[in-house]
């Protein structure tokens, strides 16, 4: 099992793996409250990338990764994720504009 230490490397490789084989790649999360441990695994049944942590700050990073995967998997592997936050930002100013005009 390949445990990756730097978070950004893990995210980049996961997205690459998913884009390479979207049909076979899955993202697994295991949480044990009794041990206070979180393990993430992304695999296409040929290559496996894992990340483990016991830090609360990594839970926040994991949420961002969840968002990325939800977007990729629900919309399709070709979706532009730059970034999942980018989409939210483009939506908000339009609403604000309407409010000011009124």
């Amino acid at each position, binding site marked *: 099992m390949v445990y990756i230490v730097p978070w950004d490397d893990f995210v980049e490789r996961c997205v690459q793996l*998913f884009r390479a084989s*979207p*049909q076979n*790649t*899955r*993202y*697994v*999360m*295991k*949480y*044990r*409250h*009794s*041990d*206070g441990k*979180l393990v993430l695994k992304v695999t296409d049944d040929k290559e496996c990338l894992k990340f483990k*942590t*016991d*830090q*609360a*700050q*990594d*839970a926040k990073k*994991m*949420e961002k990764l*969840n*968002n990325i*995967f*939800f*977007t*990729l*998997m*629900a*919309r*399709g*592997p070709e979706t532009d994720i730059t970034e999942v936050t980018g989409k939210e930002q483009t939506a908000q100013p339009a609403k604000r504009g309407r409010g000011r005009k009124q």
Partner: protein
Amino acid sequence: MVRLQLDPFLNELTSMFEHTTEKGSVWVTLKHSSDKSKVQRNKITTAGKELEYKCLVRATDGKKNISTLVGTKDHQRFQASYATILKARMTSLKKREKKDKRKAANVVDKKLSKTTKAMNVDKKQQVPVKRSSTANP
């Protein structure tokens, strides 16, 4: 494997987290899927139509299995609810941030104090040089 709608799935997931507080794990798996067999998929692609993909979400506590499909329209809402559940439930992870920041701040403060002392020494040396230059003309 029990296939549920989005909201019942989220409720069941919450109860799984509650049951495994003392003992056990919760596994959540995300997969890109069209929810159709290979035969059906081939038929659709040969007919020239586009396959509709969704996100298959599975959860288990080791004993009970639940799953749901998240489509393109629902994924934002599901994402938000899912994030809320995780934030509320993952409370046993360690919070090392404050200690790291304090240590980092101490190290930075020490470095700053050393540099300011060095700068003060330089200024004292420069001042007499300036006075002598103005006195000449």
